């Protein structure tokens, strides 16, 4: 927010191929958003070719809001979160293995081009992350308490005693029973749910303004998952942080997210307020996801409607719309458009964007007549 006078007016530099029509292509994110990601690209050169894990991603997130990023494995959701945290470039060795471009602004501060040391000072203090597998994210040799203490003392000039008190306080806050005793336990003495709580305690010890949770409940049982999701929600209310929750489970995002971003093949194919995306999805891939999902809240006897084929290779992303080989409607737009021109994100109103060549009216018709009745 401090340096907002900068050239934020610049139009996002995506190829202006298709979106010349009335609807503005990919409007610039709100100026004062707490987190702004614009045209982020994360590419990894490998022996087999360039892996375009994230290829032009734009979104923004306000404090106190939760953004859900959904997608299948290999859609680039985890790479996005690591990029925001600066973890692809933490060491010199890593830096040679990744090509990053675009903009990530945390409270106005640009992170992609920033000095890794500077990013390190933000990481853990202003932004923190919860990982999927708490057993491998916690160090097995050190006690849970000492790992939280370390996270606290890296950013705060306090003595060990104060930090320990803080660690106990955090463990208590995330619901670990007898925190003053458990603080000296090692990760293997904790159950899966408690480890995840401990990791949340570690992430929140410095009251970060941005919290990224990458599949925070995938390794957990449903009853524990419910506890952890409630915990994340409560803590967010308490601290007012911005939260990004990354998951493949549409149920989890429906519980938590205000906004939703659907990724496919390293790009965003649809984003908008959660209710819009759930009730009026605009992209055939989102329809596919909804149709593939067995529902617990319905006695469904109909067959599931899967998406045919499998997710694309990130080395040879299909030309045009990355979803075209799997899309049942690929031939609807004229002139083979889906296979030659990459669709831009276009707004359908109310901050709801989608990237599809089909006319919005056509998609509206398909959704209400063909898809929705079968779900």
């Amino acid at each position: 927010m401090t340096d907002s006078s900068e050239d934020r007016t610049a139009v996002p530099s995506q190829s202006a191929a298709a979106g010349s029509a009335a609807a503005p292509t990919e409007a610039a994110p709100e100026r004062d958003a707490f987190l702004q990601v614009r045209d982020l690209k994360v590419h990894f050169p490998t022996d087999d070719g360039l892996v375009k894990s994230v290829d032009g991603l734009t979104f923004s997130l306000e404090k106190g809001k939760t953004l859900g990023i959904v997608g299948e494995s290999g859609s680039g959701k985890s790479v996005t979160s690591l990029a925001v945290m600066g973890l692809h470039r933490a060491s010199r060795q890593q830096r040679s293995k990744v090509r990053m471009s675009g903009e990530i602004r945390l409270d106005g501060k640009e992170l992609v081009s920033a000095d890794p040391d500077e990013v390190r000072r933000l990481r853990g203090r202003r932004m923190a992350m919860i990982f999927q597998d708490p057993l491998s994210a916690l160090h097995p040799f050190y006690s849970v308490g000492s790992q939280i203490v370390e996270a606290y003392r890296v950013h705060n000039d306090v003595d060990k005693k104060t930090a320990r008190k803080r660690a106990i306080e955090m463990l208590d806050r995330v619901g670990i029973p007898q925190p003053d005793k458990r603080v000296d336990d090692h990760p293997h003495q904790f159950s899966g749910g408690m480890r995840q709580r401990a990791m949340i305690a570690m992430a929140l010890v410095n009251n970060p303004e941005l919290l990224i949770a990458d599949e925070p409940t995938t390794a957990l049982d449903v009853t524990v998952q419910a506890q952890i999701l409630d915990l994340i929600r409560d803590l967010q209310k308490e601290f007012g942080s911005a939260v990004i929750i990354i998951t493949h489970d549409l149920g989890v995002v429906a519980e938590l997210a205000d906004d939703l971003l659907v990724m496919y093949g390293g790009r965003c194919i649809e984003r908008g307020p959660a209710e819009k995306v759930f009730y009026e999805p605009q992209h055939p891939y989102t329809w596919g996801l909804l149709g593939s999902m067995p529902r617990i809240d319905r006695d469904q006897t109909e067959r599931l409607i899967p998406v045919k084929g499998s997710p694309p290779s990130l080395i040879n992303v299909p030309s045009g719309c990355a979803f075209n080989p799997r899309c049942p409607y690929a031939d609807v737009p004229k002139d083979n458009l889906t296979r030659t021109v990459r669709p831009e994100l276009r707004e359908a109103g109310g901050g709801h964007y989608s990237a599809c060549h089909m006319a919005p009216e056509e998609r509206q018709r398909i959704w209400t007549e063909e898809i929705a009745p079968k779900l």
Partner: protein
Amino acid sequence: MTETTDDPNNKIPLQKAPDTRPGPAADAEPLLKVRGLVRHFPITKGLLKRQVGAVQAVDGIDFDVRPGETLGVVGESGCGKSTMGRLITRLDEPTGGSIEFQGTDITHLSTGKLRPMRRDVQMIFQDPYGSLNPRHTIGGIVSTPFRLQGVEPEGGVKKEVQRLLELVGLSPEHYNRYPHEFSGGQRQRIGIARALALKPKLVVADEPVSALDVSIQAQVVNLMDDLQEELGLTYVIIAHDLSVIRHVSDRIAVMYLGKIVELADRTELYENPMHPYTKALLSAVPVPDPKRRTQRDRILLKGDVPSPINPPSGCRFRTRCWKATEVCTTTEPPLVALRTGHQVACHHPENAGEPAAAGTKAPDGQASSDQ
């Protein structure tokens, strides 16, 4: 899944032998009958391997599997559902109880004696990466059952394997490829083709789709559905995902700490859960419907599942149950039918009196609050 033979004479009649298989649900006799099944894994200590305790993975369960049905088994990690799957396929030997397959007691049969039965009972595994040998071709993997059983299918092994590959939606040309050339969903199809090679009657699938992406998961669920219809298969599907279980099963068994706590028809179980654990489990599943998050009354269970080494006395769920009373500590509730086709093991069942209407609404007990 089949052990290599140590007895070369142990040949089985050809597959073309008269097929006595009954049609799905043709007779009332259950295909699989499990009574008092127990599996304790001993914990030993010291040089002499003195037994100091046991992990009571499966601790006395009874159920039947009827021909042509799909029995879903659901529960959290550590509840013993996978051990149960390994026991009924006899990949592991029970500590106690009995398993009857088509009227034959297979509880303690030796490897050799089991071999004929292995043709009829097959397993689909969770991990499509770990369950296929990376050094064997797909043709080799899918034809292994024929080799092990000494079966010569009509038209030759290769032709039959290619037919199977087509059946599960792969191309017959994949015969000479290796597992690493396939995606997770395709690998799972290969595992299914292998399981179906010998035309089994019972297929036990342990988390068949949990390693797959949503869009692929739906493909495999549909495939298993189609194959059941086409081949008259009986499934036991073990999974932790309650949405998948609801979609695939006819009847569902809910397990908790080595016991079946509730066993009922699908609709009955989801509309009218009677065991508090089932109710809590169902209420905990996140529903992909943002509007419902505010209306739902979620029952939050306290703490974690207790250790199966030292399960609580009486009812095993009592430590986390909001309805627990004195009797729950002292007496273990038996699994009894409180309604037709609905068995529950609870002293204070939910929805016991009223008709099917309650659904997944608020609990009448006081929900344990978040910690």
